């Protein structure tokens, strides 16, 4: 007999997410994803000085402020006609890259790992490593005191990694990762002042000159992080993915086969070549990467708590008028669609687009495919391709591979910095102008749009990664990517729907970002300059 399981709060993500699944015979038959918090700071930027946009929008989210500040900077650069100095481009790349590293490490260890590792198994560690034995004593003492918060309670499951040796190593990495992610934050504050809520990027460039000493300070931390990513993070992912009980997750949790990436990390001053490429994939056809067309973006609010006049508009024309009593609605998220289709965004989308371009020869210098081979992941990828499905494990693995590729590239960007050269292109605010900034954040494709009128902000818009991933159904009844990914997952015990949260967390949702935040009400169609 079918039953409905409601999970609220979905913890270890950013923000307020509710998931409902309909389970029949131990398998998910249907799913609903609901964002349950609304701030609506849409009116905040209207009438404000355009330079404020970056400081305000980075406060959309405290986990991924970097990408909002970066998108806002590029958006304003575009509106002001800035010619970005190379130093500024490179420093923006380096700091956003540092935030990717921070975010990806945080995600795997602190947000996801407790779904796979049995912390209580640490108490049974019998090895001789003094550090691990100390960890065992600590966990044993907590257990004895009957206070194992925040690790217990949890969903119980018989497939946790419970080998004491392995569990203890992984938990020790959980603790190490706290310090590593902190180090990544410190690294970017060398140029950006502090984290979260950083100050080092402004329209036209950045505020800190590269110097021999700050480059060295950055590189010292980066080198340590690169070694840790290679030797710990990537290896841990491979270890967990290799647990035989998790083999079905190679393909289970597939979001429907559509992927979108705006591309990020400019390799030249005009942003024509990007380290993470732009493109989209449909029907899991990885070898055929389509050319992104911004005009094909629309948003549906059929099942969202917004008035019907907000329905099926290009985000740039979008309206955000809440209606919490709307019949049939179940989320504060809108449902963005590309060419009418739901799209998964994020590390897996980016890596599949990159793989597609490397496979077809459009990306000459191959980086991802050799890495996949080197790590012995060829057969796993082949299995996904054969099944036409990329599930929970590839989503985690590609996040780690992206982290590695990016950290390695950052070392080269450091070499390109030129102390003593320009960091800022000073421009005046035009009386009227339009701008856009399309970038990639840790969680996926992010777009900011601005309209400046009378030297102040007339209109400011964002479309945010998790709005894509955690979207509700659209006007045609198509489910959002997370909703689709949940269908078919095994839920043998309705009291402990562990696989549901495993799947949801593999997307690294960020709900504060997702709920359409900066969206001044206005009427009429706006033309935006598409570069």
């Amino acid at each position, binding site marked *: 007999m079918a039953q409905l399981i409601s999970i609220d709060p979905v913890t270890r993500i950013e923000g307020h997410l509710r998931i409902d699944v309909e389970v029949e015979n131990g398998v998910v038959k249907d799913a609903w994803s609901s964002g349950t918090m609304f701030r609506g700071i849409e009116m905040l930027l209207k009438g404000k*000085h355009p330079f404020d946009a970056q400081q305000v929008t980075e406060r959309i989210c*405290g986990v991924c402020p970097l990408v909002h500040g970066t998108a806002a900077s590029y958006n304003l650069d575009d509106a002001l006609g800035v010619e970005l100095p190379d130093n500024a481009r490179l420093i923006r790349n380096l700091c956003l890259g540092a935030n990717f590293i921070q975010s990806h490490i945080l995600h795997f260890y602190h947000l996801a790992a407790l779904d796979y590792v049995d912390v209580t198994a640490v108490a049974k560690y019998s090895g001789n490593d003094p550090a691990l034995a100390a960890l065992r004593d600590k966990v044993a003492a907590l257990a004895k005191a009957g206070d194992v918060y*925040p690790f217990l309670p949890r969903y119980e499951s018989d497939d946790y990694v419970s080998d004491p040796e392995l569990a203890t190593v992984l938990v020790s990495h959980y603790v190490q990762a706290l310090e590593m992610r902190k180090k990544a934050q410190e690294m970017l504050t060398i140029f950006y002042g502090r984290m979260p*809520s950083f100050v080092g990027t402004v329209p036209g460039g950045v505020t800190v000159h590269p110097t021999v000493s700050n480059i060295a300070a950055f590189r010292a931390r980066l080198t340590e992080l690169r070694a840790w990513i290679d030797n710990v993070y990537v290896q841990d992912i491979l270890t967990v993915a290799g647990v035989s009980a998790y083999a079905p997750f190679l393909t289970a949790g597939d979001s429907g086969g559509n992927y979108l990436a705006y591309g990020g990390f400019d390799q030249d001053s005009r942003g024509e070549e990007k380290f993470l490429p732009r493109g989209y994939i449909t029907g899991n056809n990885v070898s055929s990467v389509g050319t992104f067309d911004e005009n094909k973006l629309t948003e549906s609010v059929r099942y969202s708590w917004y008035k019907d006049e907000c329905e099926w508009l290009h985000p740039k024309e979008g309206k955000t008028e809440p209606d919490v009593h709307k019949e049939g609605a179940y989320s504060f998220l809108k449902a963005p669609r590309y060419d009418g289709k739901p799209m998964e965004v994020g590390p897996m989308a980016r890596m599949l687009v990159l793989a597609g371009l490397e496979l077809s020869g459009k990306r000459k210098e191959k980086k991802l495919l050799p890495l996949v081979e080197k790590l012995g992941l060829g057969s796993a990828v082949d299995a996904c391709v054969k099944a036409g499905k990329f599930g929970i494990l590839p989503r985690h693995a590609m996040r780690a591979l992206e982290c590695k590729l990016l950290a390695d590239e950052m070392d080269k960007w450091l070499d390109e910095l030129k102390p003593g050269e320009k960091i800022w292109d000073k*421009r005046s605010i035009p009386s009227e102008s339009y701008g856009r900034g399309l970038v990639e954040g840790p969680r996926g494709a992010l777009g900011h749009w601005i309209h400046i009128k009378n030297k102040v902000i007339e209109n400011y818009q964002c479309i945010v990664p998790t709005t894509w991933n955690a979207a509700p159904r659209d006007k045609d009844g198509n489910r959002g990517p997370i909703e689709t990914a949940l269908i078919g997952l095994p839920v043998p015990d309705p009291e402990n729907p562990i696989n549901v949260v495993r799947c949801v967390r593999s997307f690294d949702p960020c709900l504060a970002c997702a709920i359409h935040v900066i969206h001044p009400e206005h009427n009429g169609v706006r033309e935006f300059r598409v570069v």
Partner: protein
Amino acid sequence: MVEKKGVTRRQFLKYAGATAALLGLSESLIPEIARALEELSSGKPPVLWIQGQNCTGCSISFLNTNYPMAAEIVLDKLSVRYHPTVMAAAGDKAFGVLEETAKELAGKYVLVVEGPVPTAEGGEYCTFGLEKETASFHGYQRRKDKPMTAWMEELVPGAAAVVALGNCASFGGIPAANASVTGTKPVQEIVKEIAKDKPVINIGGCPAHPDWFIGTVLDYLINKRVPELDRHNRPKMFFGKLIHENCERRAAFDAGLFLEDWNDDNPDMKLCLFKLGCKGPVTYADCPTRRWNSGVNWCVGANAPCHGCAEPSFYKDLSPLYEPLPEVHFAGLTPMVDTLGWIGAAATAAGIGAHYLYKQLGKKEPEGGES
């Protein structure tokens, strides 16, 4: 007790010393702090950390704590029973902890609230956890969303103290800019309606500095009383001094050396950010001496203006962020400053030297530099 935990006396005193430094206390208090911390370790105070209209930035900032380390705080010093970003449990297993703790440990737990509370539409603008009551949903009777307001009513009465973490929770912050729709209220207003005399400590900052939070909690646990607060209910030990008074670039200000183009790099003196909009003259926080992210840097250190993020008036009343503070009459408080709601304007007048007055009086930059 200490030795049993595998910590040497020496390490423990070092820890106590770091705590003293964190709280800005005299080293002579180290033995006393060590004793208090030792007592603490034997019975960890329960903490319930809930999130309203937040961005999780203050949680992330907490994880950036340098000393003591986050793992130490979470495992050794506190019993963090509920924290949505950290805890293993989800769904009913997660919010069940809130219900149990409220019942079983009434009067004992510290309630930390990140983000303000929306009150419009019965609290529907922020919900987590499930009500007992159900509603029809695709042929099922589905449990309803439980509003943040209902959680506040359930959790505030039994809290030993309430900590409003960050500017949004303390003063409404960015979500309050849309209060006409969502009915957003700062935590202290909600608490006042539920339990008039319940102590609320506001830790400002967007985000709150980890030291400000951890220092306040340790101080509260060691001394068993709410620390001395200013008129905005912020701990004076962290929010007692004007940034401008303690700024490493104060000498540049006094010399009239201002940064106006980010390409300028004065080899002799780091330039003052006042003309690029620095709100240091109206902002009370110890950023210049404490710095951020393990002391690596801070906003002014990155050649960027202070935006005043620890003030109740942030963001709305401090915008435009990159424009100099308007004509402050240096001889005293002016009506204009008063109406803009700049907290600490009187101190600004006193804090800003006469030098700027002579050099820059009446000169206001056009928007975004030269136009």
